[in-house]
């Protein structure tokens, strides 16, 4: 749709104005406020939406206030194949006139005209989109309701771009309904809801059914079992008869065999009795023979014992003799040993004596030396004590002397001095004392008071000293007095004497130290008691030596020295050791001889006892045998044995015959057959009892459950289960159908929307690059609204963009839509004083955008700021005044 021209008359403040717009491109309508720019948009709306006869408030509102005239709107329009002029006057002399020029000329008035225009518009454009694409003052910041517009020609355009066909309100309602129905059966996460009780009911009914089926199977099994048990019992009863007859037959046979067995038992008893008798007779004979044999053996034993007693006597006698000899030898050896030990002791005593005597001599010497040392020590201590000059005193004297020397030096220095120098060898007299001076020699003298120098024969010269320094002279005096005092206090004459006395004292002290060391050496230490120890040792040595010689056995001479005495003692002790060894050997021999004697003596006694016993045994046996023969002679015994043996043989033959008779009947086999037959019958009886018990149990169970009505209940349970299952199936069918429908619709709709989104986004982005730069990208949602803008990699949600950027994007969105629909005519984009928030640079860019859009669709900009749109290239400007 394109609006080529609009004319307003008596419309608000406009008395009569006509504006022509560029068919393609941008028309900028410039004019101050209230000049009637916005009225044009309003007029278009009223023209197309209201009948001329309407008295609605919005129509009354446009009536001029200053005169009574009907507002009138006239437009030239091209839309689709149509071109027409359309005029309406409202409120006063209202009329509608339509003049169609294309495709066929047509003239209509009144309501017919209105309806024809509506028809044409409906056929060629979409008012919803038209409204969406207009931005009125103050509405520029948001995004036009393009979601709604998407269902109109924008939607169609986008659909064509995406290759789909458009949707309308019916489709939306259908979708919402499908969604609602889906929600009744399914959760948002796609889980079924509301079917749980149905499934539970099916499960419950199935469980009931399963239980009943199981019980029924048990009953059926019991019925079968009962029939089987009946049949089994009948078979058993039938089979039992012949088995019982066989038992009777085998029992008769067994009774006959038992008779034979009893007979055999009797005969075997008789044989046993005969065997006992025979055995006893044989035993009697054997007993007699044994008694005779035992007597003979007893006599032999007695004879052996007697010989043994006789053989033992000689060796006993010789042992006794050997014992006596050994005793004598032992006594001799013992005496020899004692003598040798006495000699050893005597010799060792001599050694001890000689050693003690030597020690005594040494100790006595040391006592003498000790006494001398003590005397020397006393002398040294006395000398040290008598010398008054100790080191401190000496140092005091030396100090006093040094002071005197110093004082003298000072005095000397203060005196005049005379130097006499010889010019040739000469002797001069100085204070009368001649002094020989060689050539060049010099004599220096200080002058104490007066000095006379005389060269005999030549001259005499007197030199007198002045008064001198009194303080120095006093110091000399004081020093002299100090020296005198200290010497007097010490008790020496002068420093030299003091030095001498000090030397003497030091020597005395050295001697004292030396003597003390000597005493310690002699005592072997400086501990107290050493002297007493020495005295004690001297006393001990004296005790050891005194009286020994007098007490000594004078058998051997006293050896000369300790070495000789030791040699003798060692010899004597060796002799004593040899004597002890001999004594020990003698003792061993003596003990062996005595042991042997005791042993032989014991054996002889034992043999005598055994002989006594053997003799008694012989006597007893002789007596017993004799008694027995008196009672029963040997011959009688032999006869009895022969008779018993014969009787036994006879009984044995009879028993053997009976046994053979029994064996021929086969008793073991007969017994086995009988036992087996009885077991067979018993087993059958047992089995029968078992069957009866089983049957009783089965019938008891059947009685218990036979009247539970299981089959009927099972059938009812099947019905209930089927009903529950059918209910669930119906639910499932309904739920599945709803899901299927909803998903089909949703998938198709999502796809369609996705198809819209692409072209719109691309177009907005390409416009946006002009304004925001080449890196811009926009995201467009399913509802065809701009979601975000990305610039230089930074994505900002639409709502967070600056007001200006939002406004610019809003305008671009509308332009993008208009461009997308422009190829089929579309609708004009009417922008009413927008871009109030854009800076100059952006305004320039938006100018380019508008020019770009204007190349493919009609863009009408209404503004009171002509500068704002100056930079729209190729725009037709119309200024209203």
């Amino acid at each position: 749709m394109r609006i080529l021209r609009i004319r307003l008359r008596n419309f608000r403040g406009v008395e009569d104005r006509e504006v022509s717009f560029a068919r393609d491109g941008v028309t900028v309508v410039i004019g101050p406020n209230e000049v009637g720019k916005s009225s044009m948009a309003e007029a278009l709306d009223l023209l197309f939406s209201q009948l001329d006869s309407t008295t609605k408030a919005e129509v009354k509102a446009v009536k001029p206030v200053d005169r009574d005239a009907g507002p009138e709107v006239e437009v030239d329009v091209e839309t689709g194949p149509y071109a027409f002029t359309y005029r309406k006057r409202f409120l006063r002399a209202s009329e509608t006139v339509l003049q169609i020029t294309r495709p066929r000329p047509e003239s209509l008035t009144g309501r017919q005209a209105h309806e024809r225009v509506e028809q044409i518009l409906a056929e060629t454009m979409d008012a919803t989109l038209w409204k969406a694409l207009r931005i009125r003052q103050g509405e520029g910041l948001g995004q036009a309701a393009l979601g709604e517009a998407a269902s109109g020609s924008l939607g169609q355009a986008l659909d064509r771009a995406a290759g789909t066909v458009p949707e309308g309100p019916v489709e939306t309602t259908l979708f919402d309904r499908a969604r609602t129905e889906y929600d009744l059966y399914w959760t948002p996460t796609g889980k079924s809801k509301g079917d749980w009780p149905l499934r539970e009911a099916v499960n419950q009914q199935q469980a009931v059914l399963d239980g009943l089926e199981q019980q029924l199977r048990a009953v059926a099994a019991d019925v079968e079992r009962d029939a089987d048990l009946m049949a089994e019992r009948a078979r058993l009863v039938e089979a039992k008869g012949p088995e019982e007859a066989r038992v009777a037959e085998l029992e008769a046979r067994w009774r006959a065999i038992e008779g034979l067995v009893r007979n055999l038992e009797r005969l075997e008893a008789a044989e046993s009795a005969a065997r006992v008798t025979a055995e006893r007779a044989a035993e009697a004979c054997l007993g007699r023979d044994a008694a005779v044999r035992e007597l003979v053996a007893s006599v032999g034993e007695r004879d052996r014992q007697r010989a043994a007693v006789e053989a033992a006597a000689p060796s006993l006698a010789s042992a006794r003799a050997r014992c006596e000899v050994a005793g004598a030898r032992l006594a001799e050896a013992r005496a020899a040993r004692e003598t040798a030990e006495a000699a050893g002791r005597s010799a060792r005593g001599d050694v001890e004596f000689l050693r003690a005597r030597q020690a005594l001599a040494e100790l006595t010497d040391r006592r003498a030396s000790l006494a001398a040392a003590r005397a020397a020590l006393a002398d040294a201590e006395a000398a040290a004590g008598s010398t008054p000059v100790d080191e401190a005193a000496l140092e005091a004297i030396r100090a006093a002397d040094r002071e005197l020397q110093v004082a003298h030096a000072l005095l000397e220095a203060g005196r005049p001095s005379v130097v006499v120098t010889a010019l040739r060898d000469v002797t001069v007299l100085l204070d009368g004392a001649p002094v020989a001076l060689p050539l060049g020699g010099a004599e220096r003298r200080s002058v104490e008071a007066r000095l006379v120098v005389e060269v005999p024969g030549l001259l005499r010269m007197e030199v007198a000293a002045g008064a001198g320094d009194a303080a120095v002279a006093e110091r000399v005096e004081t020093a002299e007095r100090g020296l005198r005092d200290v010497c007097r206090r010490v008790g020496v004459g002068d420093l030299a004497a003091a030095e001498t006395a000090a030397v003497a004292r030091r020597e005395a002290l050295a001697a004292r130290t030396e003597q003390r060391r000597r005493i310690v050496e002699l005592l072997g230490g400086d501990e107290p008691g050493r002297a007493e120890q020495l005295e004690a040792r001297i006393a001990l040595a004296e005790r050891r030596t005194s009286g020994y010689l007098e007490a000594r056995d004078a058998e051997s001479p006293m050896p000369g020295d300790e070495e000789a005495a030791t040699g003798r003692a060692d010899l004597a002790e060796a002799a004593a050791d040899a004597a002890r060894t001999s004594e020990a050997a003698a003792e061993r021999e003596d003990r062996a001889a005595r042991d042997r004697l005791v042993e032989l003596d014991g054996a002889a006694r034992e043999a005598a006892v055994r002989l006594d016993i053997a003799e008694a045994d012989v006597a007893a046996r002789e007596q017993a045998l004799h008694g027995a023969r008196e009672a029963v002679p040997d011959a009688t015994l032999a006869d009895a044995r022969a008779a018993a043996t014969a009787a036994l043989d006879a009984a044995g033959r009879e028993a053997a015959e009976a046994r053979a008779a029994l064996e021929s009947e086969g008793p073991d086999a007969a017994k086995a057959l009988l036992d087996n037959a009885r077991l067979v019958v018993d087993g059958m009886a047992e089995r029968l009892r078992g069957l009866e018990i089983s049957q009783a149990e089965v019938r008891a169970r059947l009685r218990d459950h036979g009247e539970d009505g299981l089959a009927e209940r099972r059938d009812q349970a099947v019905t209930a289960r089927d009903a529950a299952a059918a209910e669930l199936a119906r639910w499932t069918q309904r739920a599945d159908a709803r899901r299927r429908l909803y998903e089909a619709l949703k998938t198709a709709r999502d796809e369609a929307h996705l198809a819209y989104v692409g072209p719109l986004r691309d177009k907005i982005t390409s416009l946006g690059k002009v304004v925001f730069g080449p890196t811009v990208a926009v995201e467009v949602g399913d509802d065809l609204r701009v979601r975000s803008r990305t610039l230089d990699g930074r994505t900002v949600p639409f709502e967070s963009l600056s007001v200006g950027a939002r406004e610019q994007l809003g305008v671009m969105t509308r332009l993008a839509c208009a461009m997308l629909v422009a190829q089929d005519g579309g609708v004009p984009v009417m922008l009413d004083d927008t871009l109030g928030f854009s800076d100059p640079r952006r305004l320039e860019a938006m100018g380019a955008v508008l020019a770009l859009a204007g190349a493919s669709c009609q863009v009408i900009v209404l503004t009171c700021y002509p500068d704002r749109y100056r930079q729209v290239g190729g725009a037709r400007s119309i200024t209203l005044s």
Partner: protein
Amino acid sequence: MSVRFLHSADWQLGMTRHFLSGEAQARFSQARIDAIRTLGRLAGETGASFIVVSGDVFETNQVSPQTVRRALDALRSVPVPVFLLPGNHDPLDAGSVFRAPTFAGGRPSHVAVLEDATPHAVPGAPGVEVVGAPWFSKRPLTDLVAAACEGLGPTPGVRRVLVAHGATDDLIALDNPAAIRLAAAERALAEDRISYLALGDRHSTTSVGSSGRIWYAGAPEPTDYDELDAGNALLVELRDDGRCEVTKHHTGLWRFDRERFDLDGEDGLDVLAGWLDRLAPKDRTIVKLTLVGTVSLSANARLEALLEHERDLFAAIERWERHTELVVRPDDDDFGDLRLSGFAAEALARLRADASGTGPEADTARDALALLVRFASAAGAAS
């Protein structure tokens, strides 16, 4: 002196039909108890001296005591002796319902159970003996009729009614050892060892062989769709002249109907609706429909609505193998009015593509399409 008696069989008391709802099942069960009273009345009206029931009195030995007590109560109202034979459903085994305390303790004196082949004299009908060939297990290994006849010799002046149960060898394979050998039975009839063979097992009233004396009485109320002639009792008259006359009396109040409908044409659904409409009495009628053909979504919706409505009237309406025989194929008419566009049109196209196949996925797609039609119509109407 001629003798009349009623021959019935296959009461199958305690039978449950899974396709019946709880309420219908109760009426169905009650109808079969009521049939006993009907037999009693019929005996009174026709002058029958006794009633023989040829097996399967109970659906199973494991029926509920309630069923047994109600049966006994109904039997008490019967004015003549009744002879009950254990059949293959209620054999005289260890679990037999006839020996269970409820039946044994509550059995009226004029009701006898034929527990063996011993001839029973009938009180009030001199010269007549009733002989049973009861089942002792579910799988007998002999021809029970032949076994029962073996012990019977021709006895002048006595007419014997042999009551038996099972299939005759003209109906089942010969290798079944329990098959009733028709030739042997007819020989026994010819030799006058028996005068009438009262059979049970087939639920449809059927005369067997050429003697006119061997009959299946059929069930007094139908029990299944495949029964050709159920719901009868036989009035048997053994006349003095030796002839035997058998008269069929209808006792059944319920009906089973199985019908096939082709819904392809324009009026297929109308035919079905008309047929259902004509059936009566609906509350005692059980219908199994075999529906074939191809229907659109809207036709299918109308079909479902029709059946929903009729199900409230009928005891039961079953559909037989619905999925394999009736193809629901959405056609353009189903969607023509919707004029969907955009994604909805796309979704519709995809669902239709999926719905054109077979299998559960296609079924779900068809269901989804039906929903879509419903919702879209509502949406279209609202906008």
